[in-house]
């Protein structure tokens, strides 16, 4: 390995660790808001949205993607992908998510389940008054 090689290794390692630290810091700073919302998207379109607290442990929701139905299941103020028609099951391996900003992503079935802090900040375009 040349010196430039080593430099590259160090820089990539630094970037990786730095972004880990950043994520960790953000998570540590995050208080779980009572009104956390679970947002389910297919192809970038919101198909379902409900308060995280509303999904009881064991309760399931289905979402249809191009490959078939992905099933999410609720836990104690958390959700995970229970089953998915995708070949790689990466989404299922993601495990539970519970904090705003966390997401379960299923690329093959185009499904994204993510948690927002509250109702989308601006749920309207203008106000009549």
């Amino acid at each position: 390995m040349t010196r430039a090689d080593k430099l590259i290794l160090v820089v990539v390692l630094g970037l990786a660790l730095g972004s880990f630290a950043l994520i960790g810091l953000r998570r540590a700073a995050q208080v779980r808001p009572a009104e956390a919302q679970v947002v389910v998207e297919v192809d970038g379109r919101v198909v379902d949205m409900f308060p995280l607290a509303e999904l009881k442990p064991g309760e399931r929701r289905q979402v249809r993607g191009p490959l078939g139905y992905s099933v999410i299941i609720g836990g104690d103020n958390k959700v995970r992908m229970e089953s998915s028609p995708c070949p790689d099951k990466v989404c299922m391996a993601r495990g539970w998510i519970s904090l705003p900003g966390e997401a379960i992503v299923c690329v093959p079935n185009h499904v994204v389940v993510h948690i927002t802090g509250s109702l989308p900040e601006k749920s309207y375009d203008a106000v009549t008054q």
Partner: protein
Amino acid sequence: MGGQTRKLLYLSLLVATGTVLHVFEGFLPALGALPGAKLGLANLVTLLTLALYGPVETWWVVILRVLLGSLMGGTLLTTTFFLSLAGALGSTLVMLSAVRLGRGALSLVGISVLGAVAHNLSQLLMASLLIQHLGIFFYLPYLLLFALPTGYFIGITASCVLRVFPPGGRQGEWKKHPVRGVVPRAWNM
């Protein structure tokens, strides 16, 4: 054999090897539950082509490999295909740029690591485009970290292969070889 024919033969061999590795890798389960976290075996062939020949040949080998590999793996025009294509094009672009800009400062290992990083980044970009969501960038740090051992491993392997399978192509295809540790020599077979 004439130079042209010999070159065509070896390039075909590289495409074939790449295709096999591409298909084989598709059989492996996702590593560490990370989307797009692969060993990047097919990248080995890209590295070899890049060291043995030039940018044009590399692009040919990469694109043919992705097309044939996807065709044989049965993933042509599926999500997987677009992810592979994005990864392959992205890593090739970065590796070729690294060779050009590095001017001999980099060895195959460094180039391979850069290629692995670019591969994962391109896949994430393509994935976020496909699902129209940026949530997938959650995986970025994991994939960066993952690119280190895989890139290193593939780079070392490529160096080993080149040692027993010495490069050259037509003499002067690279005047002074831009990758450190790769000495241009005439084919001696």
